[in-house]
């Protein structure tokens, strides 16, 4: 399993559209991917779970991936977080 801290940098945080982007990205991988904020854990492939994170701009989220494509999965997430979800 690999682990990585990611920062939310877009202004509105993880609202519906970024949540869609994250779950779409995560769904491309076989690995089990989780996002954790302040101990609260959700499935990164579930947009609904992501919405309940209430991650505002500036929040730091721990992403974990477990599976044979875990490295690629984390890299892909890192990329979209760093791009501020293209907002």
């Amino acid at each position, binding site marked *: 399993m690999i682990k990585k801290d990611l920062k939310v940098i877009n202004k509105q*945080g993880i609202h519906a*559209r970024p949540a*869609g982007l994250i779950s*779409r990205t995560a769904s491309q991988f076989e690995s089990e991917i989780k996002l954790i904020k302040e101990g609260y854990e959700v499935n990164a492939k579930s*947009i*609904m*779970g992501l919405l*309940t994170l209430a991650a*505002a701009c500036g*929040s730091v989220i721990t992403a974990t991936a477990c599976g044979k494509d875990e490295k690629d999965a984390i890299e892909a997430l890192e990329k979209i977080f760093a791009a501020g979800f293209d907002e």
Partner: protein
Amino acid sequence: MIIKKGIGANIGIAIGKAYLVKEDSVLIEKLDLPKDRIKPEIKRFKEAIAKTKEELNVIREQILNSLGKNHAKLIDAHHMILMDPLITKEVPEHIATFSVNAEFALSEKISATIKKFENIEDPFFAERKNEIMDVAKRIMANLSNETKMEIKDLKEPSIIVAHNIYPSDTLQIRKSDKVMAFCMDMGSKSSHTAIFAQSIGIPAVVGLGDISRIIKQGDMLIVNGEDGTVTINPLPEMIEAAKAKMAELKKKESYLLKMKNLTTATRDSRKINLMVNLDPQDDLSEFKKNNTDGVGLFRTEFLYMNRNSIPNEQEQYEIYKKVLSCEPKLPVTIRTADIGADKASNIGIKGIKNEENPFMGFRGIRLFLKYPDLMKTQIKAILRAAYETQAQIMLPMVTSIGELITSKKIISEAKNELLSQGLEFKSDIPVGIMVEVPAAALMLDQFLNEIDFVSIGTNDLVQYLLAVDRVNQYVSELYDPYHPSVIRVLNLIIQTAHKKGKKVSVCGEMASDTYGCAALITLGADSLSVPLKMHLKVKEFIRNSSYEKLISLRQRLLNISDSQEITEIFKGI
């Protein structure tokens, strides 16, 4: 006839028939299914998903054509919700494990998710649950084969009344459509529906509590987005009055539009500086079109809200740059963040919550001086953005000279840092204070040696002077900007500043009120700053008044003993 009061979410008046959007709050029945019914039940659920998917595709297409790509993206998110494993995987599992009907399984899964939203404090994120509710309702409707009545199917112009209007409903409505106004039980000024109503320009009142249960299909309504009222089955004379008001608003609007390009001067050609108050989220093109004399107050506390991190220098710089480059020749007064009081933030500053008396508490310059790095970051961003513009810095809530000296020290430290970083900035930026605490008004002569200008914040000055909390319903009627003591203090501030050759600007609601504006000009204020939407109205008033006449009333104004007298003094001005 009943009048209900809610929150005005978008201004304007509409008179028309109610169209009640029924809430499908039918209780979901739990059915225990025999083993052989499980498979067909899962199939039925999958069919409902497929049908919902098609529905969303159609809506997406409509939105793309009418509102554009950005709005259509919301439907993409709805697609994702529909395809969420929580729905596509867990609901069928729930049906199989517990041998229950699809409706019940779906509602169990959805309510478990919705429950998680209840712990979210941030209203922006808490509102996102509507997105999920929206999709869940569509699936529900498709399960029961009910045809969902769509707002777009309306046959005659109507006022939409609902418990809550969901994002996909609002997206289907266009200005040209048959929706005249909205009113709903739920919602706040920041809810999706309110923002939508503003963007398409129809009147809306939200947060009405139980209006969807009181109104019957086809009831006659008057929706007044200005004062946030909805009148149900109004008396004929009320309809007449509302019609007259609508016509008046329309006439006024076109009349005011014509004034955009005229200068702000009195009948006897005395130029009055009329500026506007802006927030970072305001529409700058609207500001540009209004042809103002500058920005008398640019509020920055909103940059710190709805987030849990501190905006960094670059982020702030870009926001200030945007407003400063909009009209680079005009003065723009940027107020350092007045966080606290009614504008609390959750950026992680301790001790800001649960103050017994927040208006007299930890806010404005008091807070910044406790967190000097926070202040320095903002000052640096302002200084850089101010390069080659007419920007000035204003400090809020200054009460004693020590606070001013420390603030100025932070400003010069910020300048030194920028200098050593080799960055361009406005080294001679004027610094002023907002006079809103009576102590600062009384001590102004001492402050003046240290500042370049004075700005009066009447809202807080009045409430501190009269010891009236204007958001406290029991005493708010005692809040009185015409109180003789207010007039005297304003006069003291203006006279003291003028003696030392310093200019006085006034921001605060008093400046946009007819008599307040008249009183301020009479007392000699150098410039007035009003909300953008009041700008043309105040301009009209100034253009119709005579400076000479106003000045001649000065002595009478200073001698009043009761606020009522102001009305008499300025009547017919």
